[in-house]
């Protein structure tokens, strides 16, 4: 039977569980940090010597941990790119901006178990020799920011943070930095600019890879809240045990945010790839199906920027057969294992692991218009294709949803979207284009019918066509 597997959220929802130090310690808190700083250097079979820090970094690499913020990049590899010879300080930043529409997983950790994040961060700092770290938390979470500040103070008082942590000689400080309502601060280089006290204009890569030229042009690691929490569990369990969770190349657990037209929306932690998209939506342990009398129309599988999936789609996935050979097999939408690789092979992504479900009562034109308004509002404005394109798409969709559509709007939208992706400084360009490209491609009839109906209405003597104003921002 498909069910939750709670590793990160093991304690968060226990009755009486509180975000304070005493409670955290009662539940085994900071034991992983003690274990980490007591790690012995080791010699590998090939004679290579590893320092204690290298051992932990190696463990994180071997665990297969992939970033939980959006891109799913190997955390261990990211750490290995850090320029350790520049002589400059190395910074660690926890990305707690959580602003990808549909996503509400980091919120649970930040509000209910802040010490778990702090422990994960101190271990990560220790392993990477970072003496200064920041938690960049979105401005709309003022309570979590306060909780974190209290927790950080408690950690300092107990010697888990600050000077000479647990007598190891290692000094580390963590501060909370609040954003102020801009989605682009979630993009790691925009976040860094924002942390430097500037507008969150993403930096172009190359050359500004955070691992080399990050915060204050120093090597910097940016990881998501959930990713950093996993580091603690990798240390506790050891990489081999940890990697048994989940599925090959998609190890560990992941918190899925489920919203939209299901009976039981909520956050569910699963072993990556052990539960299917259909189970997450329909099973009694998860979403419990669509509202009565409704059927599935579309799924946004990984936050609003991921490409939409249409009910009834069947995908060709690579599967290893009993003979070890890779073959292509047909996998229907609802049987897609919820993991990084399967969703990528289905032409979309698991992104921030936020699923938004839409039933047959929903207009895909309205849904896309809603999302496009988000991107038009949130573009930072540096790149012309993104700034203008996101606004054009939103305006076109505003017309289409306000009785002023045209049959060729589907082509028009697609054309604009195609001219954004790949032509921008940061991946926001893709994030804005992908929903449009996928909605229009998969639900083209709906967009064309809507435009055609408006044209017919006007042709038959209705009010003359006029460009409706876009909403005031």
């Amino acid at each position, binding site marked *: 039977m498909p069910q939750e597997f709670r590793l990160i959220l093991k304690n968060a929802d226990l009755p009486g569980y509180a975000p304070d130090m005493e409670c955290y310690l009662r539940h085994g808190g900071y034991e992983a940090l003690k274990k980490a700083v007591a790690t012995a250097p080791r010699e590998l079979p090939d004679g290579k010597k590893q320092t204690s820090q290298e051992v932990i970094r190696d463990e994180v690499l071997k665990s297969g941990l992939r970033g939980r913020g959006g891109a799913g990049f190997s955390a261990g590899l990211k750490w290995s790119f850090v320029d350790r010879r520049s002589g400059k300080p190395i910074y660690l930043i926890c990305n707690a901006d959580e602003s990808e529409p549909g*996503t509400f997983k980091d919120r649970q950790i930040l509000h209910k178990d802040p010490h778990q994040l702090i422990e994960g961060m101190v271990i990560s700092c220790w392993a990477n020799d970072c003496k200064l770290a920041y938690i960049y938390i979105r401005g*709309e*979470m003022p309570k979590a920011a306060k909780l974190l500040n209290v927790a950080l103070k408690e950690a300092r008082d107990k010697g888990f943070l600050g000077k000479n942590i647990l007598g190891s000689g290692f000094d580390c400080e963590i501060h909370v930095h609040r954003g102020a309502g801009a989605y682009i601060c979630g993009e790691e280089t925009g976040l860094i600019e924002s*942390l430097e006290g500037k507008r969150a204009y993403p930096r172009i890569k190359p050359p500004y890879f955070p691992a080399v030229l990050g915060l*204050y042009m120093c090597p910097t690691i940016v990881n998501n809240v959930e990713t950093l929490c996993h580091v603690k569990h990798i240390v506790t369990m050891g990489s081999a045990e940890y990697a048994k969770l989940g599925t090959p190349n998609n190890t560990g657990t992941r918190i899925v945010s489920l919203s939209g037209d299901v009976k039981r929306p909520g956050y569910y932690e699963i072993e990556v790839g052990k539960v299917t998209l259909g189970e997450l939506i329909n099973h009694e342990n998860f979403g419990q199906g669509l509202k009565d009398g409704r059927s599935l129309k579309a799924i946004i599988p990984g936050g609003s920027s991921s490409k939409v999936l249409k009910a009834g789609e069947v995908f060709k996935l690579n599967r290893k057969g009993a003979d070890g050979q890779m073959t292509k097999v047909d996998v229907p939408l609802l049987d897609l294992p919820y993991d990084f690789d399967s969703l990528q092979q289905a032409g979309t992504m698991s992104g921030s692991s936020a699923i938004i479900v839409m039933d047959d009562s929903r207009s895909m034109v309205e849904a896309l218009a809603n999302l496009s308004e988000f991107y038009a509002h949130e573009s930072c404005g540096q790149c012309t294709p993104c700034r203008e394109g996101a606004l054009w798409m939103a305006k076109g969709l505003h017309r289409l949803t306000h009785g002023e559509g045209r049959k060729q709007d589907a082509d028009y939208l697609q054309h604009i979207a195609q001219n954004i992706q790949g032509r921008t400084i940061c991946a926001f360009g893709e994030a804005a284009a992908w929903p449009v490209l996928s909605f229009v491609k998969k639900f083209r009839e709906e967009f064309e019918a809507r435009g055609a109906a408006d044209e017919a209405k006007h042709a038959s003597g209705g009010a003359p066509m006029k460009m409706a104003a876009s909403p005031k921002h």
Partner: protein
Amino acid sequence: MSFSVPANLEAELDELATHYPVKRSASLMFLHALQEHFGHVSKDAVVWTASKLGLQPINVQEILTFYPMFRQEPLGKTHVKVCRTLSCALAGSGGLRAHFCEKLGLDSHAHVAQTTPDGKFTVEFVECLADCGNAPVVMVNEELVAKAGMTEADAILEKGKR
């Protein structure tokens, strides 16, 4: 100049500035604190922040105008942020926002922040508040109201009128 920052707040901000190797980094945190204290960020607050952090006023002004949470005008006592984005829209946040506006005599089509003439309420459409499983979501000052229906909306209005 009538603008003055209380000593305890200034001390708090001085401490905040020590969190960063480069003082400029503290500017967002300064604006948060000043806005919390004064209700909005005035021109004087911009100039004050710039001089504290060794910046030009434009360096502060440009972040004030970039980040949606910072305000150049005073806000209503009860600040209602209704989430506009998809999951909340599916759960009826459009109607909820319109309800607030109608009850308060505000334009129910404008998405931007609108404040009632008596200064009691500001109503605004905002983007995803990261609690989509509880859609529709409304933030009232620092409180998040989950699964907000018309009953919850009326309670918020009632409380704010007092």
